[in-house]
């Protein structure tokens, strides 16, 4: 939520250290078929993802539907168990912890869900919903649960007197605030937000984004935000990972990524975003991708984007490009990156070697 200009205060000794580290994360959902329900295939939702999230930063994962971003979020919070790979939270390997071992960890990591209508129990009052974490964790906050809940409601901009109301009495934006109050109850360090504003109207979206920003400063939170809206992601993020078919194709600081996207998929994605500015209508160059995202059941070999990429060469079909740091703090998985300073050099070099006007 914060740009480097205004990092949250309260510097801890290990502020720059990584809060959560993900290495080689894989999640395959088996497809069973036939009489014996044998496994006949797998949806390769997440297939080898590496990243680390620093304390106090906002790390976003963007991508189209089916790219595995929500699965990644659920693996981070261990709502799903990874098929392979490793998730380390504050130096502790949480990859294969049992439910009972995970429960104490839930105090440190919480999740905000996309749909404020289905993520709140309609038969519970707001007080009961927001107070549930205390009950489940067996925590008795100072001054009693009711006071703690009312403080939380005030912190997210709701009237504390609405303690005894039911979710249906609130609008979508207010419900999302209730969900946020619930995640804050146990003072978590990490909040994973899966499409926190995509179900809301634009004016309400702005209110919630502003709220998330304020809370990050007040509660010293680290955010992992999953979103498909590139404008929202640019606004909230410090660093951004772009996913395509279960892999990260580009990972960089938000400004670097938006200023000079290097992976052709990122370039295409960004050129497709409609901009609310009529003057730009003519001058914009759109890269239209053809077709749909291939099925994650049998993703294309090597570079997964080669079936839709206008720069694809033979090497893209045979050799998978690794995610390498081409520019400082800017990692890309592509054989032929865009906006790469060396590209011009390389092209002119090949031209020179093959061209006739070689002097």
């Amino acid at each position, binding site marked *: 939520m914060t740009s480097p200009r205004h990092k949250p205060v309260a510097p801890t000794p290990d502020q720059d250290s990584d809060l959560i580290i993900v290495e080689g994360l894989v999640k395959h959902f088996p497809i069973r078929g036939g009489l014996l329900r044998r496994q006949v295939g797998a949806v390769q939702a997440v297939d080898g993802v590496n990243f680390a999230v620093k304390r106090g930063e906002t790390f976003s994962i963007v991508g189209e539907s089916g790219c595995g971003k929500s699965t990644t979020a659920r693996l981070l919070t261990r709502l799903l168990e990874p098929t392979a790979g490793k998730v380390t939270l504050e130096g502790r390997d949480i990859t294969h912890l049992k439910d009972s071992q995970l429960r104490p960890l839930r105090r440190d990591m919480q999740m905000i869900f996309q749909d404020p209508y289905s993520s709140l129990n309609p038969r519970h009052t707001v007080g009961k919903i927001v107070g549930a974490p205390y009950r489940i964790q067996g925590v008795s906050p100072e001054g009693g649960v009711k006071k703690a809940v009312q403080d939380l409601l005030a912190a997210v901009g709701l009237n504390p007197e609405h303690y005894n109301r039911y979710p249906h009495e609130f609008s979508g934006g207010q419900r999302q605030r209730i969900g946020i109050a619930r995640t804050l109850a146990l003072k978590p360090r990490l909040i994973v937000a899966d499409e926190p504003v995509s179900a809301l109207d634009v004016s309400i979206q702005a209110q919630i984004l502003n709220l998330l920003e304020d809370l990050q400063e007040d509660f010293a939170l680290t955010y992992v935000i999953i979103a498909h809206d590139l404008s929202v992601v640019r606004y909230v993020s410090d660093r951004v990972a772009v996913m395509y078919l279960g892999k990260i194709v580009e990972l960089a600081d938000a400004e670097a990524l938006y200023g000079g996207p290097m992976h052709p998929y990122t370039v295409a994605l960004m050129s497709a975003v409609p901009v*609310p500015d009529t003057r730009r*209508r003519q001058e914009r160059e759109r890269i239209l991708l053809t077709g749909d995202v291939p099925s994650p059941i049998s993703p294309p070999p090597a570079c997964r984007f080669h079936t839709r990429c206008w720069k694809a060469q033979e090497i893209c079909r045979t050799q998978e490009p690794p995610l390498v740091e081409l520019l400082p703090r800017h990692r890309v998985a592509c054989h032929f990156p865009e906006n790469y300073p060396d590209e011009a050099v390389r092209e002119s070099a090949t031209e020179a070697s093959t061209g006739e006007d070689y002097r």
Partner: protein
Amino acid sequence: MTTPALRDLVIRHPGQLGKQPFLEVVDLKVHFPTDDGLVKSVDGLSFALDRGRTLGIVGESGSGKSVTSLAVMGLHTRPSSERTRPGAQLSGEIYLDGDELLSKTPEYVRSLRGKRMAMIFQDPLSAMNPYHTVGQQIIEAYRIHNPVNKKVARKHAIDMLGRVGIPEPSRRIESYPHQFSGGMRQRAMIAMSLSCDPDLLIADEPTTALDVTVQAQILDLIRDLQSEFNSSVVLITHDLGVVAELADDVLVMYAGRAMEYGSAEQLFNRPAHPYTWGLLGSIPRFDRVGAERLLAIKGTPPFHPRCGYAARNGGLSEDVRPELAPVEPGHTVACHLSPTEREQIWEHEIAPKL
């Protein structure tokens, strides 16, 4: 809104004066009687649209955009004694090529749907029949309006599917809607809406459920097909980016009424209504380095308690509902602020922050 002269001033553009626009909606009201009282979903809305042009209607959920489009299509349940549920109460006038639709019988309006006007719905999965193949549904619509045999209609349906970019249309025509992905389904529905070359196409949030790359494909498709058939398009959306991309004129709706109405160029470069400012301020901008803070619109409807400038009118905003009034040719706004005040606020307080 009764005298033709005033109507011309408010809802027609300079180029439209004296001419009959292709679609004209005058003082449309759609009210729903409910147990909790009368819900005024649309309350006195007027606009006009020429052939070959695109009107974007923007607004938040509940502002009455979809109810308006259903009224134009004649898809509201009218009150009748046989039904236990009361239907919608409609008043006003809707002219399609000079033909007043609200006074016509449902049978007559039905004969217009498909050929004269067609609609693209937001959710293709619920708009298509899951029991019939995509092909059957397109063929049925085509044969109602065109006296052709099944074979010709089938060929036409394959053509249409190919035109909207569905690969292997001759094979996919046998597919059921659930066998398509979201983007393909949306394209199939567009193919269905366009199969009879409608003169008026109403697209209700046509790309909201889609990813940006597919959205770009669909918007391009609508643009191409529009220029090919010279159709008029009403584009209903909450996404100001999509409007800026496609629309010639823009109507900003709020709580069933028009807040501001003008060309896209006027609306985006010289917006006059505080609500429009709010909408523009509350979207994070993709094309700019992040502003420090979004200018959120506070609270919920009606507008005057949410408006930061309502206090300047000495209580006028609380008591009197502002009517649409012209600020420049073809650009009208419903707001009590005086033109000079408005210009000052826009230039000094709003524009620098966007």
